[in-house]
């Protein structure tokens, strides 16, 4: 059995006294592609944020590459793709500038970008099919293209583990295909993936294991469950509003 990349042991998380996850345990080993599935508000995004140390645990523990997340320092081994581009950005930024931020984990804050950094940014942009948009402001891109910018940013850091939070929610078909292609290449090179979704679409063939979060615990851990009812219809268009699952801070960027 290969080395554990993510180890969550009996984790419990609550926001302001309300328990979101009680007793969750999960292990992801190198080379796996694990999908975290569940309804809106089931806590699947919270689980990934806890894995990254962005949400404090009320009990239990999280380890990344065998190190407790609080003491974990090798962030260049991890690529994080958030649900959407933050509201931050009162100032325009080009696609290249946003993707280049993905190199900081590797480069540190003081060293100016070198040739290797520039090449990694180009490669990542090509992998998501955005090589022709590098100089455009990200705000002029469609939602799906912005999502691809975020995966390029994560790929630019040449990580071993990708953590993606609903990467295909509300994304057009062309972007979903480009996204699946980029992910496939990443997995073929030996990368590990933890991916939150509530529909898999073109990503489905890549998934090696599915974990279903339900009622604060893990309801299923194994092969991807078959969709039921009208969800199984190949033409089922899974569209419903995404609830705001995080309290928006007044001053948060």
């Amino acid at each position: 059995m290969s080395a554990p990349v993510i180890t969550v042991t009996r984790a419990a998380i609550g926001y302001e006294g309300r328990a979101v996850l009680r007793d969750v345990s999960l292990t992801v080993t190198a080379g796996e592609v694990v999908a975290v599935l569940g309804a809106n508000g089931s806590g699947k995004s919270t689980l990934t944020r806890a894995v990254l140390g962005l949400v404090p645990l009320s009990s239990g523990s999280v380890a990344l590459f065998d190190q407790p997340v609080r003491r974990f320092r090798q962030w260049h081994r991890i690529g994080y793709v958030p649900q959407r581009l933050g509201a931050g950005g009162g100032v325009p930024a080009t696609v290249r500038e946003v993707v280049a931020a993905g190199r900081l984990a590797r480069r540190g804050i003081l060293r100016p970008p070198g040739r290797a950094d520039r090449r990694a940014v180009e490669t990542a942009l090509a992998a998501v099919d955005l090589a022709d948009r590098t100089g455009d402001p990200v705000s002029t891109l469609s939602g799906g293209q912005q999502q691809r910018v975020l995966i390029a940013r994560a790929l630019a850091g040449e990580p071993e583990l990708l953590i993606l939070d609903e990467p295909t929610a509300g994304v057009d078909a062309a972007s979903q295909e480009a996204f699946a292609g980029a992910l496939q290449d990443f997995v073929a090179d030996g990368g590990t993936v933890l991916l939150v979704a509530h529909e898999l679409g073109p990503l489905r063939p890549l998934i090696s294991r599915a974990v279903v979060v339900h009622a604060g615990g893990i309801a299923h851990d194994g092969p991807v469950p078959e969709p039921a009812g009208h969800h199984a219809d190949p033409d089922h268009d899974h569209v419903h509003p995404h609830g705001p699952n995080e309290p928006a801070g007044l001053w948060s960027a």
Partner: protein
Amino acid sequence: MELFQYPYMQRALVGALVIGLAAPALGIYLVQRRLALIGDGVGHMALTGVGAGLLLNRSPVLVAVIVASLGAITVELVRARGRTSGDLALALLFYGGIAGGVMLVGLSDSTSTSLNSYLFGSLSTISPTDLTTIVVLGAAILVTMLALRPALFAICHDEEYARVSGLPVRALNLLLAVATAVTVTIAMRAVGVLLISALMVVPVAAAQQVTRGFRSTMTAAMTLGLFAAGSGVYVAANADTAPGASVVLMAIASFAVLALGGVAWRTLRRRRVAAAVPSTVEPHEVVLSRS
């Protein structure tokens, strides 16, 4: 032009140019964070420092740097916690700052002219010591903001991602807070606490009317800041107007020109693109047959 032969006018010009260059270099990060008005609040708190400095017979600018830094760090801690009640905490700090400043200045032996020179700026009374402080601190701000651009861009653009990149987010945020306080304090001599935010924000707002990226916006904003400072002092010297207000009005004028120019340019380009490329119509997703 003869006016600029006098040393006090030369000091005014150099001081204004340094501030014109440094203020937008910092302000761009505040604008990106949508905290454009924070400089105003920090300026209010700096006034308490000025009052304390005058009362204790210490350099008002140095005491103001310390008080404003403490204030800016408090603001940053409130912001980082993201509480809604933070809004009111900031109001308390800002108005407490300006009220404390007015009271302390009143208690000291200074006249109301010295309060006015901090409220509205007083470029022509910059002493050689003041100028040294402005140049040294301004250069430090400029170097820090340029050297740390990728990291500061990352934390202002997407703070959570920056944290997952292993960046020292809290330290960088505190650095930005202290840099804001320092910039506000040196800019206070040029435009006064009531107009400080303008120098940090207006050149950035003007630049982004025509730029596409962060780096180009920063370069353009610094150029515009330099232009506004230089032309503002020139206008003030020749028309005998208040220098601080003249500098800010020049910056706003450049905003107006670039905003109009940007609209015109985009309209023109859209028309040219539309003429060059015949628009291809997306095929319908489904074709329904009427039965």
